């Protein structure tokens, strides 16, 4: 077993287990910490996929900023262990789990059934782009930057505006007393 394969299986195990615990932990703070673990695992997966810049961003934005936000909000709420962490309806619960299971089964089935084509696609793509991929592999950050700032500059700027709007909106929301109709 190569180191690549070992790394993948290890990281897959970490992310799936921590993801599972996000869903199953009744105490929200454990969920949050499990999510942080998942983020870190995903970040490491990005490294195995040669996306070094994204891995860093993932760590900083998700594991850093977003998770800190979540945890801080949880602390603000001072939530105790929940008595009803999950929905109660039996029929709906069954339907929900069934639909999730069928969905994932469908996709996995589709992916594995399409193994042949996927492999050939990968092969042809790698054959065609082998040189390019090898050449760009060490320098994906530069390629990402070029793509982002040249090809997708408009979307990038739009994202900037969006973030500004979100920042203002968030401040406004958290300062309000819970809905415009409740100005008492």
């Amino acid at each position: 077993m190569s180191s690549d394969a070992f790394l993948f299986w290890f990281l897959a195990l970490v992310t799936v287990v921590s993801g599972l615990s996000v869903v199953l932990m009744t105490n929200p703070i454990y969920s949050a910490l499990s999510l942080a673990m998942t983020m870190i695992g995903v970040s490491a997966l990005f490294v195995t996929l040669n996306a070094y810049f994204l891995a860093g961003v993932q760590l900083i934005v998700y594991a850093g900023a977003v998770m800190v936000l979540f945890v801080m909000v949880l602390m603000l709420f001072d939530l105790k262990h929940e008595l009803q962490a999950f929905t109660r309806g039996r029929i709906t619960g069954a339907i929900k789990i069934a639909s999730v299971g069928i969905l994932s089964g469908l996709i996995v089935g589709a992916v594995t059934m399409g193994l042949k084509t996927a492999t050939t696609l990968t092969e042809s793509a790698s054959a065609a782009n082998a040189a390019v991929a090898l050449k760009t592999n060490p320098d994906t950050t530069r390629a990402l930057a070029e793509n982002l700032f040249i090809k997708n500059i408009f979307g990038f700027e739009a994202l900037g505006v969006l973030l500004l709007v979100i920042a203002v909106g968030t401040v406004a929301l958290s300062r309000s007393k819970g809905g415009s109709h409740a100005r008492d």
Partner: protein
Amino acid sequence: MPETNLITDIGLNHYLVLSVVLFSLGMAGVLLRRNLIVLLMCIELMLNAVNISFVAFSKFNGKIDGQVMVFFVMTIAAAEAAVGLALAVSIFKRFKEVNIRFFEHLKG
């Protein structure tokens, strides 16, 4: 190509299946959990799962566009988390409640 070893030869499909599993976990959480904050966390989980498949496609197709999309998704996810949490905070301040079943004002 000789018979591929499912364990040792890590290909696109492995990443895709992992992505599906994570996505399903997140979806199950969204459907089943009652805590508003945990719901938001599960949504983040789903987004991350999608990100994995994006990056995997990017690598195995040798095109950088997938990573650019991940960049966008991350931004949106951060924004969504910020707004969602702000809403949660403001709702909690008003009702002292984060159970999603409490907010059934859209009843037909």
